[in-house]
């Protein structure tokens, strides 16, 4: 059962956001921060709305989204695949486990120069970086979910005459679904962060590039706009994933 959201909670929750905005406005209007360094929130959000309707800014968003989804989907396919395989087969497990132990704590951003040199400055290198970063959370939670499936469920299915490979789709995958989706959620947040960073390092388009261009010309207002955009994108995507989650997990007790 999901705890009901009380109206007082909503009030309490909006308070700090309102406070931050008020503090921001206050810092500017009382002259603690010069407008060139910290533009007031009204101007920033006005600029955001004004930018959102221009086609150039929309193209930047589309470029970012292509990379984000490309990398994220590759990570989901490989992460779920390898995770399930490692949980199902001891042989694959003994190969995958040490490799994951070495690669998971490796800061993937450091690989970006290598990817640039190998794959060029276009979509490919950025998508690969996003995929590499989002892969491990998804892989690990899939593995965790699939290897903690109750053995009794599998035995019952086998006793009922389910063929071995159907057990995978009918028992293991659904039972591991909550864990897989948790991994996907973390992977998605990481994808948002990484795609932005990759675009900041080298790019000719995308939201990260907008930020860098603004920073080089000291346009403080334009620096806030892409940051707020990526934050909003993250929130929207998170909401979408939540919807997918509640659809896929209908019938599950409290998730």
């Amino acid at each position: 059962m999901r705890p009901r959201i009380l109206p007082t909670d909503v009030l309490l929750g909006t308070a700090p956001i309102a406070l931050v905005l008020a503090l921001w406005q206050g810092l500017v209007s009382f002259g603690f921060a010069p407008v060139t360094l910290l533009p007031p929130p009204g101007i920033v959000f006005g600029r955001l709305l004004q930018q959102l309707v221009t086609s150039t800014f929309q193209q930047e968003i589309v470029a970012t989204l292509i990379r984000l989804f490309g990398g994220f989907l590759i990570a989901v396919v490989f992460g779920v695949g390898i995770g399930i395989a490692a949980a199902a087969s001891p042989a694959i497990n003994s190969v995958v486990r040490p490799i994951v132990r070495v690669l998971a704590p490796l800061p993937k951003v450091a690989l970006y120069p290598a990817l640039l040199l190998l794959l060029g400055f276009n979509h490919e290198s950025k998508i690969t970086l996003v995929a590499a970063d989002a892969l491990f959370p998804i892989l690990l939670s899939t593995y965790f979910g699939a290897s903690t499936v109750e053995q009794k469920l599998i035995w019952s299915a086998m006793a009922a005459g389910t063929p071995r490979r159907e057990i995978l789709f009918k028992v293991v995958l659904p039972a591991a679904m909550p864990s897989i989706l948790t991994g996907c959620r973390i992977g998605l947040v990481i994808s948002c962060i990484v795609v932005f960073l990759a675009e900041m390092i080298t790019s000719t388009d995308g939201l990260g590039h907008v930020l860098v261009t603004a920073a080089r010309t000291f346009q403080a207002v334009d620096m806030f706009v892409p940051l707020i955009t990526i934050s909003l994108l993250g929130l929207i995507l998170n909401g979408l994933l939540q919807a997918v989650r509640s659809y896929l997990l209908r019938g599950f007790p409290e998730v």
Partner: protein
Amino acid sequence: MTQRGALIARAAPVLACIGLLALWQVASLLLKNDSFPTAVEAIRAVPAILGDKEALINILASLRRMAVGFGVAVAVSVPLGLLMGRSRQVQAFFNPLLMVIYPVPKAALMPIIMLWLGVGDIAKTLVIFLGVSLPVIYHSFEGAKAVEEKMVWSGAAMGLSAAQRLVRIVMPAALPEILTGCRTGLVLALITMITSEMIARQSGAGNILFNALDMGQYDTVFAMIIIVGAMGICLDAAFERVRARLVRWSEPQFDMPLSFS
């Protein structure tokens, strides 16, 4: 596990390292690309970097910033997360704000923070602090929420004050989860450290890496990748040691790094 099995388990990550390096070697020999040196060439360039005094000072400065940012973040985030887990009001107060901040790439704040604080240590440490604190808050929160209510009640019945209950019951009970958060934070600290130095090109490991890329010293690029990667793996392994010792009492955990979930 038998003696032999334990030995194999310990050797496996080393074997995996060697295997990956061999794969790299073969790939670079096959591709014959000027900008993709072989693994042997890259490893040969490592001593040159570590022997260079200036580079060493840079790398140590990076590690110092990382340690400070990580330490302060843990010190602030753990109490906040625990409070959020125990009090509905505190949770309702902070949760939406944290949800809005979570998907913002912290290193992307670097250009803005640089405008205010300059390119020095403070700006970079602040960015690392921001990057580390969110996962630690989140995991402490989850850990504190899952503490068994009965234990807290027993503590209350025995006359512990609210603050004492938090420190003596909730914190130890949530410790495994908190440490998982710290481990994620450690990896994120390293990532944020590299990216912040790459954006504020002035000093540090990230600076060496991307300067080498700009100047086309590909051996150095790949050698730095090896160094940074080794830093990540060593820090993670060291942390895992500490963690295993601190939460020996808790159920045996997964030995794969589940740090991200």
